């Protein structure tokens, strides 16, 4: 058998590159088909990379931490002792793990006249951001003073930033720069940055806000909690239903009645979805993800409640499968638990709208000409104007308010 280069596989439908999170085989290990080779942090989650080939692991080309584009080689399998040089020098092997073949040239503007022999030009791959070369002491000073070394020109050998370059560099003046830290982007943060920038820059957002009388909804929830508690078997935890679970179900019911809001823009057409698949924003340690509750209009409140809790737990342990985060038709983001009264959310492309949910507020309200204690809930709908016009969005919110204010509809419809 010939040594074979193992490429970075597509581990999620939207993945363009992956970062090696861990290797589970080391060089010299036997590899059988379907053995766990490595874990890869993709734009969505940490995924298992399993072997399609068998043999002996002859080389690891992408050590832990390396970001590898789809199709680039990460490892070589073959027969012990065979020559892998031909495979290892293929051009689609990531450049990161190889020793730097030639130093980066100091930028021409800052190169001191005293440098006798200019450093050879750098063949660093265009895709990877060029590594900052700096002495350990300079790196320590940069950490202490919060300096951005990418702004400093190095005058040492191979363009290395040395201590004297900090003294000469205006942005390095410690008094003028507040202390800060640079945290490299995780794959998730890169995805959030890319997708939400794309959304805000290309999707024409507009916003509709409505206040809902949340009194009946709160009363229904209290009743459900009491009923579930008394229905629980002795020693068992009663099932839980949150205001958000009821709201998700209400959104699904309202979308079923106003299907124009369950739609997305697709170039030369509007795609109207037959089924309501709700993306639910879940905050996790390093960002947020949006697992999808499928066919929410045909699920009971209890089914939705159980599913949301299971998905949220998976999300927090980074175990969501990519298909559990794909192809939602409408998003709901709730910041009520953080005490937020109302906010406007950024549309989660390619969906056509997102509903931002605030907290249930105790407020004085006017009822039958008298001011009484009441409960209010603010909902803000962000719409893609290419898909949803103001009147359509408003009719959806009116339907949603009616459902929430007569919440037996949530249970019955």
């Amino acid at each position, binding site marked *: 058998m010939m040594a074979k280069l193992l490429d970075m596989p597509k581990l999620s439908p939207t993945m363009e590159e992956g970062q090696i999170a861990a290797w589970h085989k080391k060089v010299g290990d036997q590899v059988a088909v379907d053995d766990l080779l490595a874990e890869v942090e993709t734009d969505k989650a940490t995924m298992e990379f399993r072997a399609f080939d068998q043999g002996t692991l002859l080389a690891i080309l992408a050590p832990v931490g390396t970001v590898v584009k789809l199709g680039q080689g990460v490892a070589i399998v073959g027969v012990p002792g065979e020559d892998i040089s031909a495979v290892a020098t293929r051009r689609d092997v990531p450049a990161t793990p190889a020793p730097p073949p030639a130093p980066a040239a100091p930028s021409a503007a800052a190169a001191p006249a005293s440098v006798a022999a200019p450093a050879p030009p750098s063949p660093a791959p265009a895709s990877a951001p060029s590594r900052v070369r700096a002495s*350990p*002491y300079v790196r320590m000073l940069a950490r202490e003073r919060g300096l951005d070394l990418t702004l400093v020109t190095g*005058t040492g050998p191979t363009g290395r930033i040395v201590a004297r370059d900090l003294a000469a560099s205006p942005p390095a003046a410690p008094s003028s720069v507040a202390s800060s830290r640079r945290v490299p982007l995780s794959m998730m943060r890169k995805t959030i940055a890319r997708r939400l920038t794309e959304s805000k820059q290309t999707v024409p957002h507009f916003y509709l806000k409505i206040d809902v009388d949340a009194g009946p909804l709160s009363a229904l929830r209290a009743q459900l909690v009491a009923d579930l508690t008394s229905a629980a078997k002795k020693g068992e935890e009663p099932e839980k239903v949150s205001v958000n679970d009821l709201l998700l179900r209400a959104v699904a019911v309202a979308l079923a009645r106003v299907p124009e809001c369950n739609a997305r823009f697709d170039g030369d057409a509007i795609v109207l979805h037959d089924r309501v698949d709700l993306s639910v924003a879940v905050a996790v340690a390093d960002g947020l993800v949006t697992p999808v509750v499928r066919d929410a209009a045909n699920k009971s409140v209890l089914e939705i409640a159980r599913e949301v809790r299971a998905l949220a737990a998976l999300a927090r342990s980074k175990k969501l499968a990519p298909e559990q985060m794909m192809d939602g038709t409408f998003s709901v983001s709730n910041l009520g638990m953080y005490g937020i009264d109302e906010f406007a959310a950024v549309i989660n492309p390619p969906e056509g709208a997102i509903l931002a949910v605030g907290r249930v507020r105790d407020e004085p309200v006017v009822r039958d000409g008298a001011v009484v204690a009441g409960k209010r809930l603010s909902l803000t709908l962000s719409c893609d104007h290419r898909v949803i016009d103001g009147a359509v969005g408003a009719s959806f919110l009116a339907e949603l308010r009616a459902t929430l204010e007569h919440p037996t509809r949530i249970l019955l419809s």
Partner: protein
Amino acid sequence: MTKMRVREALRAAMIEEMDRDPSVFLLGEEVGHYQGAYKVTEGMLAKFGATRVIDTPIAESGFAGLAIGAAMVGLRPIVEFMTWNFSSVAFDQIVNSAAKIRQMSGGQLHVPIVFRAPNGSARQVGSQHSHAMEHFYAHVPGLKCVAPATPADAYGMLKTAIRDDDPVLFFESETLYSLSGEVPDDPAFTVPFGQARVAREGADVSLISYSRVVHTCLEAADALAKQGIDAEVIDLRSLRPLDEAALVATVSRTHRAVVVHEGWPYGGVGAEIVDRVQRLAFDQLDAPVERVCFLDVPMPYNAALERLVIPQVDRVLEAVKTVTYAR
């Protein structure tokens, strides 16, 4: 304080310790009637007599082994080799007996012995007589290795060595014996092992050294001062135990280091110092640590070639240029 030469400081230390402790005695080639090959032991035979100042035959393995045996049964011998080069004949005794007996006897025996001799290059004595033997011996657990550079340290460290209950290898330098300096008059004065000395304070670069080439570094520091470079000179004094804290402290002040020593570049004490600096003070380094030592050849007899092999001021200055990125 009394001004004295290194050879007088060493002699004073031995005489005071022999006066203080009757178990201390001296043996070696020409230490008695000839008054010492380098006159370190001048007058000691007359003062202490032939039972405590013993002229030996030219048989290093024999008298080193004899002295180790004497140490095991309670005496405190000082063995003078004519030079450390000749200790290679006694290498087995030093490495396999002196260094190992305490561990192999489970602590029942110990070997309170001092081996002392001039070490390193001298002046045109050829490749077999120009060895820097400290690199061989500092490798061995069980041996303490010290190499003073001044009369005060020669005095204070030899007294510490004689009082130590384990083998101490004391590395002197032929070209330092006539160096004069102030020595404390206090007979209780000693210099502990494992403590480096800041021979000159500076802020821009650390010249880390020991024994004779400390003075090469001080000369280089004077030349650097004229160029506006403020060099610190560290005299390690003790090679094993090694003063790691002093290495970290000096590099934390200057962020650049040049290690200067006699002996070859491959392995040895200099490599050990570089290891500690990069491992314990990595974040403090603004440049890779440079080394100035013997060139990697047997010492030539020819004077011009010998000068090229031994660390000189000009080579130290070149290394400083490298670590300060001035070239």
